[in-house]
């Protein structure tokens, strides 16, 4: 089992909802050994399976919190739910935030869970990512990279 698993969540066809998966794709070949990178549409069972037995899971997803688009925020969800005012975008009801709380209810959390939210502004079918979110993907990639490499941990 990998010590750390990075899960990029989202939908590539819905504008800024692609952000989490773009971060995962950018990280895929660059993370240190012992780190697994995967992409997900937010299916709770797949997410829980992905982090099963992991020391640390890092989940990256688009969010809507009222911050300027492109804002990247880090949350420690290990013991506390994500803030209610922050909505993680989901195409089908059962998204990342639901997966986390479902896992907490079922006792299937990883030892440590960190969530990176990237503020998005448009989520309609066929739209490209907004420029500020496109830039934020690189920012988030750097932050997650530092996280998994243990910088500042």
């Amino acid at each position, binding site marked *: 089992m990998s010590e750390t698993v990075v899960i990029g969540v989202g939908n590539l066809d819905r504008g800024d909802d692609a952000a989490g998966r773009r971060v995962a794709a950018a990280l895929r070949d660059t993370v240190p050994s012992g780190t697994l990178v995967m992409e997900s549409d937010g299916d709770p*069972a797949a997410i829980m399976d992905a982090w099963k037995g992991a020391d640390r899971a890092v989940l990256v997803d688009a969010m809507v919190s009222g911050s300027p688009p492109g804002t990247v925020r880090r949350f420690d969800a290990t013991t506390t739910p994500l803030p209610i005012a922050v909505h993680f*975008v989901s*195409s*089908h009801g*059962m998204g990342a935030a639901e997966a986390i709380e*479902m896992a907490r209810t079922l006792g299937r959390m990883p030892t440590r869970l960190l969530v990176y939210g990237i503020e998005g502004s448009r989520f309609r079918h*066929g739209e490209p990512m907004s420029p500020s979110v496109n830039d934020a993907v690189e920012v988030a990639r750097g932050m997650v990279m530092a996280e998994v490499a243990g910088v500042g941990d």
Partner: protein
Amino acid sequence: MPQASDGLRAIDVDYLARVEGEGSMKIRIRDGKAEITEFGIFEPPRFFEAFMRGRLHTEAPDITARICGICPIAYQMSSAHAMEQVMGITVGGQLRELRRLLYCGEWIESHVLHAAMLHAPDFLGYQSAIHMAADHRETVELVLRLKKIGNDLVTLLAGREIHPINVKVGGWYRAPSRRELDTIVDDLVWAKEASLALVQFAASLPMPELEQDYEFVSVCHPDEYPYNEGRIVSNKGLDIDVSEYLDTFEEIHVERSNALQSVIKGRGAYLVGPLARYSLNFEKLTPDARKAATDAGLGEVCRNPFQSIIVRAVETVYAVDEALRIIDQYETPAEPAVPYEVRAGVGHGATEAPRGTLYHRYEVGADGRIVDAHIMPPTAQNQQSIEADLLSVVNGALDLPDDELQWKLEQSIRNYDPCISCATHFLDLEVDRE
């Protein structure tokens, strides 16, 4: 609760629902009788019809698969069948069986997600599946694993679960080996028991009483419970070839809705989806699926829209049975696809998405490019039946406060498993009471 200046009471809609597109409904109540003055729900395919014009016909299965993250296979299947009709080819034998197998995976994941995680909490009074999980842990664990087996089956065949890429016009890019399919058999054997347990769970839910005189419409095949192929049949005398779809059904604008509504020409509303499929094809279910239905208290025809949650579970049993049968009899085909010459023409495809009949029509030019695309998704076809259900529900619950009424209406709309039903609270409801 906000008070609108015109005296209407507005009920908040969840912010996420706004992100995804929302349902809106206005009800006017006068003299103890309700009238729906506005009703509309989000329809994703419209953008894609325009987007496909000028694209190669071979792109249709991959492009339309992106319309819905839950039922991409349905979109692939209807588009592939329509294009194959244009090109004058038939996909048979093991290639056809593999497509049924792929559909089994989609039905399992979609039905389980909807029935157990999105709809069941409505019946039990929970805000969401997360709240339900605290009290029904075993059931939630079971359905999470069951849904994942559906996902895994789709991934095994289609290359990836989110936007499958292995289906092409004429068949497949690559056919799996027998050994690859065998890897999922143990999971499917487990899924059989789990799906039977899901039927029992669904049957145990407190069930609202409502009987509607629907005109059921579904694809009907002489020998099979319908997935990909057959005539379009109803319980009120309809029996047409798929190519006659637009001669029979039409989409109309009605003043109270911003979305198109489908009707049978000269007749009106009809119903597609699990209830229709089940009621028109009961005898084609596997013996175990039929027994599970009977044990759950269903007759051979089901007219209570709320019992669609039980029917979805029964169809999950069928999908697991069918998947096991196909894998058991599978032999790797010599070629993954049927060759064809590109030609101009018009093609029609209607297959059974988890939420109902999905019709595609394409006109293709001699250069193989799409001239025109027309998609009738199940939710649009069901709009008038949804409205009729909602009206019955409202008229039986006029005294309820708005929040309880909204709960009942959302539960009723979820009977149809529309895209927006995934949002926890998706209905922007206004009730005008005198």
